[in-house]
């Protein structure tokens, strides 16, 4: 299993000052598999993702991507890893100094050195893949709605045909119908690319739709990990409380008594 895993986290720890966010995360994402990490706000979902991407360095533990250890990787190894990944950010994180098509084509032009004219055609094709008309290609990202920005972000993430896709809260901040459109697009794009996907979300509807496997993060550890079909039958009280969205239960909520 660990030989074939696309992404493999072992005993990953990360703290910020006295605050220990991750306290031994173990997780595997197999090739072509889509894994959703669920958990409440502030449980370290984003930190996990940023550690894998190398935006944060774990305090201890091992993160392997395609068998290459990332925590001690050279710049060249890290660049090679980033060249085969794509990421959709929570707020889309589109470059507002560039037009929509320049955003989508960014990885192609700057990362792969493609000629702008060719990259532009590809970018427009990618925009059509996510259901956006070619006429928004010249617009500024700031003039788009939140749902459209997310779709442009998705088009940018898949433009370089990555082997690994990361999704940070793909449905947060948009209406449920547009959220479902994004979920469908994520499923379609990851299937078409045959990519491995790692999604962090607290939206159970989204997790059920896009993931093959669900891992629940609580107090810095993965407390449950299993196929998406099993989440309703699993006898894990933490998972059941989260899935049902109850206030009563074993999860320690970071709030005063209501």
């Amino acid at each position, binding site marked *: 299993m660990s030989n074939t895993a696309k992404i493999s986290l072992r005993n990953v720890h990360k703290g910020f000052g006295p605050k220990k966010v991750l306290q031994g995360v173990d997780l595997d994402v197999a090739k072509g598999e889509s894994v959703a990490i669920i958990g409440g706000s502030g449980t370290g979902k984003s930190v996990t993702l940023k550690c894998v*991407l190398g*935006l944060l360095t774990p305090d201890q533990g091992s993160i392997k991507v395609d068998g290459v250890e990332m925590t001690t990787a050279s710049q060249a190894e890290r660049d090679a890893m*980033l060249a085969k990944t794509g990421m959709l950010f929570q*707020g889309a*994180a589109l*470059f507002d100094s560039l037009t929509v098509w320049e955003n989508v084509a960014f990885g192609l032009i700057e*990362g*792969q050195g493609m000629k702008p004219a060719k990259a532009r055609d590809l970018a427009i094709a990618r925009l059509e893949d996510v259901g956006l008309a070619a006429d928004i290609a010249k617009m500024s990202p700031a003039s788009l709605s939140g749902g459209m920005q997310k779709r442009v972000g998705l088009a940018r993430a898949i433009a370089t045909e990555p082997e690994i896709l*990361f999704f940070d809260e793909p449905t947060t901040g948009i209406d449920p119908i547009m959220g479902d459109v994004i979920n469908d697009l994520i499923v379609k794009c990851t299937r078409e690319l045959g990519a491995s996907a790692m999604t962090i979300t607290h939206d159970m509807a989204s997790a059920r739709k896009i993931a093959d496997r669900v891992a629940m993060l609580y107090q810095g550890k993965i407390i449950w990990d299993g196929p998406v079909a099993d989440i309703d039958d699993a006898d894990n009280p933490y998972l059941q409380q989260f899935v049902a969205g109850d206030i009563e239960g074993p999860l320690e909520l970071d709030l005063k008594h209501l």
Partner: protein
Amino acid sequence: MPIFAPVGHMFLTFLALVGRVTVFAGRTIGHMVTPPIYFRLIFKQMREIGYFSLPVVAMTTLFAGMVLALQSYSGFSRFSAESAVATVVVISMTRELGPVLAGLMVAGRVGAAIAAEIGTMRVTEQIDALVTLSTNPFKYLVVPRVIAGLITLPVLVLIGDIIGVMGGYLVGVNKLGFNDGSYIRNTFQYLEQLDVVSGLVKAAVFGFIITLMGCYHGYHSRGGAQGVGQATTNAVVSSSILILISNYIVTELFFTR
């Protein structure tokens, strides 16, 4: 000793800041000399930092030259040395007022804009997005701005010097009754190459400081809109102070031996 603890804490914080800025500057210089270099972005930033700062620098140096002529005339007339006005204007402009005034104006205009733009990119995860798209944020964001600052500030100051001397000339000839030919002759008679060159070296140093501080504070901003506002303020204040300090250091290096 509750008095010493905060002082010591402030001093340590200050030392840590100096260290971080030095590391940041070192990384920037390292990336400046290694490929890829985004020439397109350098030209864009030169337009942004240099060309669009021309009106501000021109206005500042014009009035500085004018008031300098007026003030030195009223001062020098006390000991009948009015003829030195043209020389005083040109030497003060090229050595001091041109670079310092242009530097401070550009620090307010450009340093703030850089910090706000890069800071917003930081808090909206655009800098993280750059990394995931296989682009080094230092090469893409910091280096073009710093190179543009290094190149355009001396050009701006050279233009500012000329406009400032012209301001002095306009006041000298039209208001103070100097003969135009002799004013121009006095301007160039005692001017040395080193006066202008030292001013341009200062300008390059200031250009580096302004863009570096803008990038540093923007790059390390956190905490949403308030954090970006803080970064903008810090960029302008720190670059202004560093301009005045480095101005003294460069002057001492050039003119005392």
